[in-house]
């Protein structure tokens, strides 16, 4: 078996991992299993980054999304609900519509970006310089927009968290 074939097999393995994980994340009735599916999909994405020869991004994906985000979600689930309550929790049609709209909008934005993009290898790619200086300079100069966008996303997340708790306080979630 050639070395290249093995890499191809891993590529399809990661693809299956992402698809299966995402399927599990959206269909599972038990939230814990859904989060495990999410973690699995994140792993698959990290694998794809590795396949695309970007180990730094792959490791950051694992460190942030699997190691931090998924754990925070699980912690939230464990503090918030017991499995029995979760099973009784029905998805409202209004929420389905809203989430469908949100996902379609995201898909549309990503599709627009993808169709407009002109793919060419970036000049710095594959240099393998992961020193602090290089990373810092790249983040502040070349990828400055991405850096700023991330801070906006974080701001939205904080506002969202405040809004959700505000609402819960007023309505009283405990029945």
């Amino acid at each position, binding site marked *: *078996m*050639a*070395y290249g074939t*093995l890499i191809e097999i891993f590529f399809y393995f990661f693809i299956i991992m992402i698809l299966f994980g995402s399927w599990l994340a959206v269909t599972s009735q*038990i939230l*814990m*299993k859904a989060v*495990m599916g999410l*973690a699995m999909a994140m792993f698959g994405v990290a694998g794809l980054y590795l396949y695309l020869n970007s*180990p*730094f991004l792959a*490791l*950051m994906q*694992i*460190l942030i999304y*699997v*190691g*931090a985000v*998924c*754990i*925070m979600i*699980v*912690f939230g689930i*464990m*503090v918030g609900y017991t499995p029995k309550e979760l099973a009784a929790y029905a998805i409202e049609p209004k929420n389905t519509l809203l989430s469908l709209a949100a996902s379609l909008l995201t898909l549309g934005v990503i599709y627009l970006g993808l169709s407009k993009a002109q793919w060419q290898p970036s000049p710095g790619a594959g240099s*393998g*310089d*992961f*020193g*602090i*200086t290089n990373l810092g300079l790249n983040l502040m100069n070349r990828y400055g927009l991405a850096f700023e966008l991330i801070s906006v996303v974080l701001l939205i997340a904080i506002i969202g968290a405040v809004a959700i708790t505000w609402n819960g306080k007023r309505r009283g979630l405990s029945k």
Partner: protein
Amino acid sequence: MPPELLRMIITAVLVVAFVFLNAMILGYMERKVSAHIQRRPGLMEVGPHGVLQLIVDGLKLIGKQLVVPEGASPFLFRLAPLLSFVPCVLPFVVIPFSRKLQAVSMDVSLIYILAMTSINVIAILVAGWASNNKYSLFGTFRSVAQAVSYEIPMLLSLLSVILITSTFSLKGIIEAQKYYWFILIQPVAFIIYFISGLAETNRAPFDMPEAESELTAGFHTEYSGMGFSFFFLAEYANMFTVCSIATILFLGGWKGIPLPLGDYTGIVWFLLKVYGLLFVMIWVRWTYPRVRFDQLMTFCWKYLIPFSLANLLITAVVVKII
């Protein structure tokens, strides 16, 4: 079979073998050291001074049945030990035991190790949740709060070393300590890292997740046989990883006074330093009582994080001036 694939398989087998060997050595060491601290002989029955006891224990654990408790989620319950074991083995692939002995040389090996060790928390979560047992769940709560909090000072203290070396490569960091060890210029970072490492590996005085006298055994209460031994192996592998990062970043890795052993000098020095730190970990465990949970959190958020932030800031200023 291509030689590259053969190399990968040999590496995997050697690494797993080393993890088992390490757990045996540490298990023996822990029981012997604790015994002598408590003024009793400890293991004496199997083999001279009980050295074969851990092999016997291992065989017993392999022979035992893995009982899945009623009401537990069977798939997740069986998945958790593996999920805990595999990420703890993976860091061994990039640890440079000596100048020549390193399975994979990576530019970002430090981040790789941190990413792998962060997966361990998920395993604890799955184990505690899937067990359907209130003690397990309590242990899990504590473990997650503790691991998430102590990861911050840990990363900040490592970052102050990274600022000096400007590389994430473990080999590069060791090469940067040509004239002096970084513990001399970063003593605060070393102490903060070591304390956070104790908390990250759930060792006493921070062993809240498995506090025997309060929670039976915390998140692995329901596990028997190999399920339990995978958690056991993972804990000792994790301890080895934490101590080897401390050795590499602060104690000069494989560097030391030349011994008449040729190429093996580096390995001997590296293992001596790592097992020295591991001895300190065991020593601390059997000397200090467990802290209360609010003390644990206060210590992390009010002392360790401000100190590590100040240390990072001072390091950045000094590096910029020099």
